């Protein structure tokens, strides 16, 4: 049972980062004011995902923990760039959008790597039994 709970926690973190990346991609596809309005919603979403990571960290193995920490760092950066984007225009806005989506993609990647690390550790432990 504890193993299932841990797996669920990491999966939940990944789902949150995937959702964030999707939201930013959707926002980036829009133009002007619509994109900005959507971008405004990103920092709180990023913060919620970071909180989700913090809540699931304690019970992880080192490899998983490392990936989750990196994911949190990218999420923080993504939220910051999104906030910068809301306040900017023109080329600065485009740069901010690009950085927001790149950081969100990297966060999703790290969360996914955390899931893989967790699964590999589980498979190795199962094989030793």
């Amino acid at each position, binding site marked *: 049972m504890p193993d299932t709970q841990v797996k669920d926690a990491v999966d939940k973190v990944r789902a949150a980062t995937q959702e964030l990346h999707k939201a930013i991609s959707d926002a980036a596809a829009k133009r002007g004011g619509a994109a900005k309005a959507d971008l405004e919603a990103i920092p709180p979403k990023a913060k919620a995902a970071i909180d989700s990571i913090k809540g699931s960290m304690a019970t992880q193995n080192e490899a998983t923990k490392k990936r989750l920490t990196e994911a949190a760092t990218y999420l923080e950066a993504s939220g910051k760039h999104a906030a910068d984007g809301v306040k900017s225009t023109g080329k600065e806005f485009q740069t901010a959008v690009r950085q927001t989506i790149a950081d969100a993609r990297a966060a999703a990647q790290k969360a*996914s790597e955390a899931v893989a690390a967790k699964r590999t550790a589980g498979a190795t432990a199962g094989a030793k039994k």
Partner: protein
Amino acid sequence: MRNYIAVVFDDTSKAYEGLHALWQMDDEGAITVHGTTVVHRNDWGEYQVDSKDTHPALATAVGVGVGALLGALAGPAGAAVGAAKGAAIGAASGGAVGAVADLNRADTRDESRYETGWVLGAGQSAVIADVSEDSTFPIDERMRRLGGKVNRRAWSAVRDDKWFDDRALYPYDGYLYPYDYYLYPYEYIPPYSPWWAY
């Protein structure tokens, strides 16, 4: 182990079944999928990558990305040509924005066709994915049953391709390679495109 795979199908709908099967295997915990996309090659040899409308800020990276991705999967030689000629391959919808100029250059388009032809023949579709797998069997078996042929290249080998070392030439973010922009970290199936019929 972590690998890039290109699963080639003769039929577009089968490719989407393959895409769905990959995410299903991820959900079951048999593999971990880090990102996927679907690439089509029409009967005239032109490529389309399924993507959302993309913000202009990303367009250039997208245009270069797909060429780099297909080239990288073809091996070291393919990586160099694929990346160099990557902008010759267009993406669907907004992704084409950054690639439009080079799309019209027949010479680069033809070279790209040749270099990536072993992965994707005319009229075929491929699921491209970045996966972690403890064994190659689950994916190979599942895709074989769907009629797909799996091409696989180690993630580390693709990352080590010398071509991507030149940051001045490819000033991406350092942690994202050109083709990363193409791989969705979640299952994305775009609305039907008339392109698929050709």
